[in-house]
């Protein structure tokens, strides 16, 4: 006869088995095709850079890491903080934050619209959201340029309507980057939001409305908190990739300013400094990982009640 402690451990063992074998395929794939390579990158970050790209194998050095934070001035050889890196980091983070906010502000209504429309049409609208993204990113970006350009569709229409007197300069501006990024990342926000909203039980909304909550307050106090996991998933999916984005900023913003993605790419490309590129990307990954870890910890502490 098993005692309670044994039962508890047996149950726990079953739980552990499940959580390992179910996660195994994903873990294995990520391990082989993503983490393994990441180890390579970590190693690279500690090696001496090769003369024309790559690294000198098994010659170790901390230069890559050193250059993430410090740089030796080209001219007077003084040691100083790598303010170029910091400036670029700051700009990228700012852009990503704004992009995330804009996609959230636009994406939430879209997801909400799809989730609350007639059940039979939901898959259709969902498909309509992703369809533009079946067209290649470059083509899409070029097409966006056609829309935003001074002689483009948008400006022509606005001029024709008399809404503006002279074309709005959107291309090659931060606004252009932002609009482009919002466009490109919209589905990454809408789909997770939809996935969470689709299941929302509007009886909770009714209960709140019954308690004098206007529809806006219902949204703010009931719907948004209850679909929070979806909002967070969407925000992660937009924020992280936009930190590393470079095609859109380059094409729509004119590419006069480097983004984090460009900076890292430069080191692996024309800069031929793989250790620095590796160190920079590990820094980025580490930061994001840490943030995510903290989030999941917090969420699983406060949100475990949902599973009851």
């Amino acid at each position: 006869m098993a005692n309670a402690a044994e039962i508890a451990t047996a149950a726990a063992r079953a739980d552990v088995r499940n959580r390992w074998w179910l996660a195994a395929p994903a873990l294995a794939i990520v391990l082989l095709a993503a983490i393994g390579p990441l180890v390579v990158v970590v190693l690279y970050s500690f090696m001496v850079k090769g003369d024309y790209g790559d690294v000198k194998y098994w010659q170790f050095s901390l230069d890559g890491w050193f250059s993430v934070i410090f740089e030796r001035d080209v001219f007077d050889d003084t040691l100083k903080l790598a303010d170029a890196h910091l400036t670029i980091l700051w700009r990228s983070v700012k852009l990503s934050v704004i992009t995330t906010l804009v996609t959230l502000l636009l994406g939430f209504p879209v997801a909400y619209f799809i989730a609350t429309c007639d059940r039979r049409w939901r898959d259709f609208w969902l498909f309509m959201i992703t369809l533009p993204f079946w067209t290649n990113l470059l083509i899409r970006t070029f097409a966006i340029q056609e829309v935003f350009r001074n002689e483009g569709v948008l400006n022509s229409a606005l001029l024709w309507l008399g809404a503006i007197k002279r074309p709005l300069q959107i291309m090659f501006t931060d606004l252009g980057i932002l609009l482009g990024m919002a466009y490109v990342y919209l589905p990454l926000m809408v789909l997770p939001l939809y996935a969470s909203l689709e299941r929302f039980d509007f009886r909770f909304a009714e209960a709140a409305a019954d308690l004098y909550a206007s529809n806006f307050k219902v949204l703010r106090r009931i719907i948004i908190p209850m679909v929070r996991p979806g909002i967070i998933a969407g925000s992660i999916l937009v924020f992280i990739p936009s930190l590393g984005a470079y095609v859109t900023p380059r094409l729509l913003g004119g590419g006069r300013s480097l983004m984090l993605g460009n900076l890292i790419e430069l080191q692996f490309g024309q800069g031929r400094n793989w250790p620095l590129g590796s160190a920079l990307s590990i820094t980025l990954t580490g930061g994001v990982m840490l943030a995510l870890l903290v989030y999941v910890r917090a969420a699983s502490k406060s949100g475990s009640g949902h599973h009851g």
Partner: protein
Amino acid sequence: MPEEKSAIEICDVTKLFGDAFKALDGVSLSIRKNEFFTLLGPSGCGKTTLLRLIAGFEYPTAGTIQLHGKDIATLPPYQRPINTVFQNYALFPHMTASQNIGFGLEMLGRPKAEIAARVDEMLRLVRMEGLRHRRTTELSGGQQQRVALARALAPTPKVLLLDEPLSALDYKLRKEMQIELKRLQLETGITFIFVTHDQEEALTMSDRIAVLSGGRVLQVGNPREIYDCPGDRFVADFIGEANFLSGEIIVATKDRAQVRLASGADILARLPDTAPQQGKVTIIVRPEHAEVHADGRPSPLSGTLESIVYFGTDTHLHVRLAHGDRFVVRRQNSPLQDAALVAGATVGVAFDLAAAQILRN
């Protein structure tokens, strides 16, 4: 017209689900201010639907609903001074018990201190002081129901809709809550519209009761009227226990009639205005208004005592009448039991004129 006395005026309301299913069918009710009004009716008869129409979550397919004399068709729920205890509670899972209870007041923009005080009061009222910080998902069924009740009470609405608000509570607690609710009604002037399946609850608490069936209102009246003078067989049968005897009127005076039963015996019965004055009729006798005796006294009805069912406070005696019908007699338990009453005995059934009533067809 006592227009201003009525809190809710429901006028010929019909509600269709889909194209064909009539959940409500020409319902008209006038609920007075500060009344404790109960909706009674079988499962699926449209009680919840009616409450949802009043609260404003659904719109009538036809008909109008007035609140204090004003048509509220276009008033959204959050502008109606009406709160609801939902049948399924609908507690906010991301909030604690206190937060749920305080939600309405918060939405009304009341100051923090006032909300806190009121939440405390409500928690005390529903005996949940110790569980204020629990997530609602960590509460038992009855505890959830109490939070739902407290949440609806907290903002002191003009009208309170309660959809089986005490069904998950144990007997003792339910009694306490009944008393609290009744007290609140008397003290605060709130109009209560109450749905319950507990007949005792309905009969003791209500000022008036409406009996619904299949989306229609069958009878509206105070508990005594409903219980003692049910309008038709459905109401009689639905509320409490009832024995039905069929017979034919032989002589009818203003308010009573002599009826010849199937067994051939004649009895006297009350004859309400709404009932037929001649021909075949049905008579109702409540089980507790009849007596069984085994001493061979002559009695209009007699038969065999089939079974004796013990019910705590009382015992039900099931009698198979001579001509085949069943007749149930309820008798209060007392420590002195009648030894002659054993299953199989031949017994007579007796009741008074006042206990027998002729029903509307």
